[in-house]
C-alpha cells in the first residue's frame, strides 16, 4: 500500500516538470482536435463515469443545485465550446481541491467546499477551472507531454496501473491510477502561466457577475492555512505558488478596483453558503477522520459549530473529531511545523501505520496529556449534544467507542445498547452487537 502511494508523487513530479515548459497557448476557438486529443477526451469521459460508479460523487440535491447555479451563472447561454458539456459536481475527498476535465466536467472536493466561506469564493474557483476547459489547457499540456515522453500508447499505460483503491478520501490517488499521466496536471495544477491566465479570467468573471473578486485572495489565504503537517502538494495548497497568486491578485485589484460588495451582502451570502453546505461539511469531517486527518476534521467542525452551535448533529461531529485526534494536539505544534519535525513525521509515516504512530506518541508525556485532554473534550461535547437531542443514536455510538477506548467498559456497554435501541436497523448492528457481547463478558454482566 505504502509503496504504491509513492507512485503518484513521482508522476506529479514528472508532469510538473514537463508541463512547466509549455509552448504558446492556442486560444480555445481556433483549437484543432487531433487524434491524441480525442484519446485524452475519451479518457476524461471514462474517468467521469468511473468516479460516478465508484460512489465518489456526492449526491445531495441542494448542494448539486447550488454548485451548478454558481457555475452556470457565469456561462454563456447559447453555446458550449466544441466537445464540451458543462457539468459541476462535488466529489468526496477531504483534501481541498478542484479540477476540470477537458470534457467540461468540473469537480470540487468536499474538502474545498467545507474550507470555503461564501459563494463568491466558490464562484471564483469554478471560474478558474472553467478557463482550463475553454482554453484547452489539458490538451495543450498533454500534447507537450507526449513530445517529451516515450510512452506511445496512453491507454496501455493507464491499464498497466495498479488496481484502484476505493477507500474514501482518495480521489486524487484514485485518479492517479485511473487516468493517463498527464491528466494529473488537470488535478495537480498546470504551469504558472496557465494558472495565472485562469486566475485573471476568474477575476473578470467575478467582477462581471457582481461577485466580489477580492474573495479570490481570501480563498488563497484559506488554502494557505495549515491544519495538517503533511499534506500532499497539489496546486491548490502549494504555498510558494499561493503567495505568488496572492501577490499578483492584490496587484490586479488595486490597479483595477472592482465594484465592492457591501459587507452586509457578503455576510448574508456567507450565511447562505454555510447553511447550504452544512451537510457537506459534516460528510467531509467524517471523510477527514477516516483518512486520518483529524486536525482538518476538528478545524472544519469548529467552523460548523461557529455557524450553528445548537445543532446536536454538529456537536456530535465535533466530538467525533476530538475523539479521533488521539495523542495529537488540535493544531500542529511549532516543533512539528519546523523542517526537522516535518521530516521526522514523514519518516514515521513511511515506517508506521497510523495506529502504530499513535501508540508511539502515547508513550511520551506530551502525547498522553494531549490524549487525555482530547478524550475529555470529546466526552464533554458528546454530553452537550445529548443535552440538546437525547435521541441521536450516533452520539451514543461515539460515546460507546470513546468509553471503550478509555476502558470504561460498563459505560461503553450502556452507550452501545442505547445506540442499538435508538437505531435498531443500523448497518453496523452486527459489529456493535459483537462489541456488546465482549463487553458483557468482560464486565461480568
Amino acid at each position, binding site marked *: 500500500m505504502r509503496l504504491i502511494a509513492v507512485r503518484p508523487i513521482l508522476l506529479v513530479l514528472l508532469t510538473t516538470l514537463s508541463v512547466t515548459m509549455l509552448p504558446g497557448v492556442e486560444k480555445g476557438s481556433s483549437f484543432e*482536435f487531433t487524434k491524441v486529443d480525442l484519446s485524452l477526451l475519451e479518457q476524461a469521459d471514462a474517468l467521469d463515469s468511473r468516479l460516478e460508479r465508484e460512489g465518489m460523487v456526492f449526491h445531495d440535491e441542494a448542494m448539486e443545485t447550488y454548485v451548478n447555479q454558481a457555475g452556470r451563472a457565469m456561462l454563456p447561454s447559447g453555446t458550449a465550446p466544441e466537445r464540451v458539456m458543462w457539468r459541476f459536481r462535488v466529489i468526496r475527498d477531504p483534501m481541498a481541491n478542484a479540477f476540470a476535465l477537458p470534457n467540461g466536467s468540473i469537480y470540487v472536493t468536499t474538502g474545498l467546499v467545507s474550507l470555503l466561506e461564501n459563494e463568491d469564493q466558490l464562484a471564483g474557483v469554478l471560474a478558474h477551472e472553467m478557463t482550463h476547459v475553454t482554453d484547452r489547457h489539458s490538451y495543450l499540456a498533454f500534447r507537450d507531454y507526449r513530445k517529451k515522453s516515450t510512452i506511445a500508447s496512453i491507454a496501455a499505460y493507464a491499464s498497466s496501473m495498479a488496481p484502484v483503491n476505493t477507500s474514501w478520501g482518495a480521489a486524487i490517488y484514485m485518479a492517479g491510477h485511473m487516468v493517463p499521466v498527464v491528466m494529473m496536471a488537470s488535478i495537480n495544477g498546470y504551469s504558472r502561466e496557465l494558472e495565472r491566465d485562469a486566475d485573471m479570467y476568474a477575476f473578470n468573471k467575478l467582477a462581471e457577475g*457582481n*461577485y466580489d473578486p477580492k474573495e479570490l485572495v481570501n480563498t488563497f489565504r484559506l488554502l494557505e492555512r495549515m491544519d495538517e503537517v503533511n499534506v500532499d502538494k497539489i496546486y491548490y495548497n502549494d504555498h510558494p505558488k499561493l503567495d505568488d497568486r496572492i501577490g499578483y491578485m492584490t496587484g490586479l485589484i488595486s490597479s483595477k478596483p472592482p465594484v465592492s460588495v457591501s459587507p452586509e451582502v457578503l455576510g448574508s451570502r456567507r*450565511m447562505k453558503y454555510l447553511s447550504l453546505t452544512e451537510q457537506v461539511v459534516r460528510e467531509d469531517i467524517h471523510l477527514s477522520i477516516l483518512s486520518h486527518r483529524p486536525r482538518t476534521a476538528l478545524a472544519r467542525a469548529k467552523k460548523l459549530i461557529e455557524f450553528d452551535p*445548537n445543532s446536536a448533529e454538529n456537536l456530535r461531529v465535533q466530538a467525533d473529531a476530538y475523539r479521533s485526534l488521539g495523542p495529537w494536539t488540535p493544531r500542529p505544534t511549532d516543533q512539528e511545523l519546523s523542517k526537522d519535525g516535518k521530516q521526522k513525521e514523514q519518516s514515521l509515516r513511511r515506517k508506521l501505520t497510523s495506529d502504530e504512530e499513535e501508540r508511539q506518541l502515547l508513550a511520551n508525556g506530551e502525547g498522553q496529556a494531549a490524549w487525555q485532554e482530547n478524550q475529555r473534550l470529546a466526552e464533554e461535547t458528546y454530553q452537550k449534544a445529548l443535552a440538546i437531542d437525547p435521541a441521536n443514536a450516533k452520539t451514543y455510538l461515539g460515546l460507546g467507542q470513546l468509553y471503550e477506548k478509555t476502558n470504561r467498559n460498563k459505560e461503553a456497554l450502556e452507550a452501545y445498547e442505547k445506540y442499538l435501541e435508538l437505531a435498531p436497523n443500523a448497518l453496523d448492528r452486527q459489529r456493535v452487537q459483537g462489541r456488546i457481547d465482549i463487553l458483557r463478558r468482560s464486565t461480568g454482566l
Partner: protein
Amino acid sequence: MLRSIVARIPSSATGGGPAALSLQNRVLGYTLRAVGGRAVRPQAHRAGPARVAHGRRSGSGSQSEPRSISAADCQNVIPDRKVLLRNPPAIPWQVGHFMKSQLLVVLVLFLAIGLTAAPQASRKPLTQDQIMELVKGSVPSSRVADLVRENGISFEPTEEYFRALRSAGAEPVLLDALGAARAAKSPEQDVAGQAKQHIKAANALMDTGDIDGAIVLYQKAIQVRPGDAEAHRLLGVALGKKKDWQRDITEQRMAIQLNPDDAAAKTELAVALHSAEAEQARRDEPHVASPVKAPAQDTSAQAQQVFAAGQLQVGQRKFEAAAISFSEAAQLRPDWADPLVERAKVYMKLYLFREAIHSYDQAVKLKPNDPVILNLRGYANYSASEFKRAVADFDEAIRLNPNMSEAYQNRGNAKWQMGDKAGANMDFEKAKLLGSGAQARKNTKRR
C-alpha cells in the same frame, strides 16, 4: 410606476438604511403580487408603509428593548434636566462642621461599599475592544484567556474578529477560550440571537433579489427557533414572491398562531389568500385571462419598463427577481417573445433546465421561424441531456439560417454525445469554416 414612488420614499422616513430598504422591498413585493396575481388591493398599497413599520416594531419588540421613546417624551425630560443644571442643589456649607463630618462619614461608608463591590464590578464581561487592546498591549494570551474565562464576554466573536486577533498576535489558548465563552452563553438567548442573525441575513438576500437564498435562511431561522413568528411571516412573504401562495398561507397562519397580535402577518395572510383565489379563478377561466388588454398602449409601455427592470436585475445577478420581472412583462404583453427568451436564459443560469425549455417553447410558439430562439432551445435541451430534441432544434435553426456557425457547433456537440462521431466531426468542420468566415468578414469591416 409604483416602483418610482417607492424609490422616492426617503430612508429617514423609516428611521434607518436597512429598514428603508426592506420597506422598499416589501412594497415592491406588493406591486409584484398585484401584477402577477392580478389581485390589486389598493388598501394594501396605501397601508404599506404604516403596516411595515408596525410589523418591524412587533418583530423586534418581542426580543429587544423597547425603542419607542417619542419626541414628546424627550421634550418633557430635557427642560427638567436643564433646570437642574442651571440651579445645582448647593451643599449647604453654612450648616457647620457637624454636618461636614457627617458628610465625611458618609463618604467613607461609600468608599467601603465601593471597595467591597469592586471585585463584583471587575467581573463585567469583556468587550471586543478591551480584548484587542490587551492583546495588542502584548499581555500574554494565556492571561487574557484566564480573564475571558473569569469574566465572560459581552459580544459574539465573528470569524473576522478571530482573524484580527490572530494577526494581532493572539495565541490559540485565547481563541479557544473565546470560543468556549461564547458557547457557554445561555441557550435560549443564544437561539434567539442566532435566529435573528439568520433573519437579518435573509432580509439582506431578499434585497439583493436572491429569494431562494433568503428562503433557505428563513427556514434555518425557523429550524433554530421554531417559535419565531417573525421568521414564519417573512418566510411566507418570500414564498409569496415565488407565487407559492399555499405555503405562504401556511406560514402566515403559523405566524399568527404564534403571535396572535401580529397584524403584519394578518395582512400578509389576507393578500396571500386573495392572490391564491385570483390565480385559481384565472386557471378556471382561461378565456378571461387577459382582461387587462383593453388599454393596449399603456400595458405595452409598462411591459417594456418591467422588461428593462428584469435586464437590470440580470446584470446585478438577481436572477430570481429577474425571472419574476420577465414573467410579468410576458403577462403584460402576451404577444412579445423577448421576455420569454430572457426568462429562459435566466432559468438556465438557475440550473432549471426544464423550466427553461418550457419558456423557450412558449417563445417558439410566438416566433416559430426564429433560428436564434431555436438554437437557444436546442442548447437547453442539450444541457438537459435531451440530445435528440436538441439535434431537431439545431436542424431547424440551420434550415432557417444555413450560416449559423453556433448552431453547427452545438449540433456537433449533441451528435458527439449521442455517439455519432462522424456527424459531429462534420458539423465541427462546418462551424469552424463559418466561424472563420464570419471572423474574416468582421475583420474586413473593421478595416
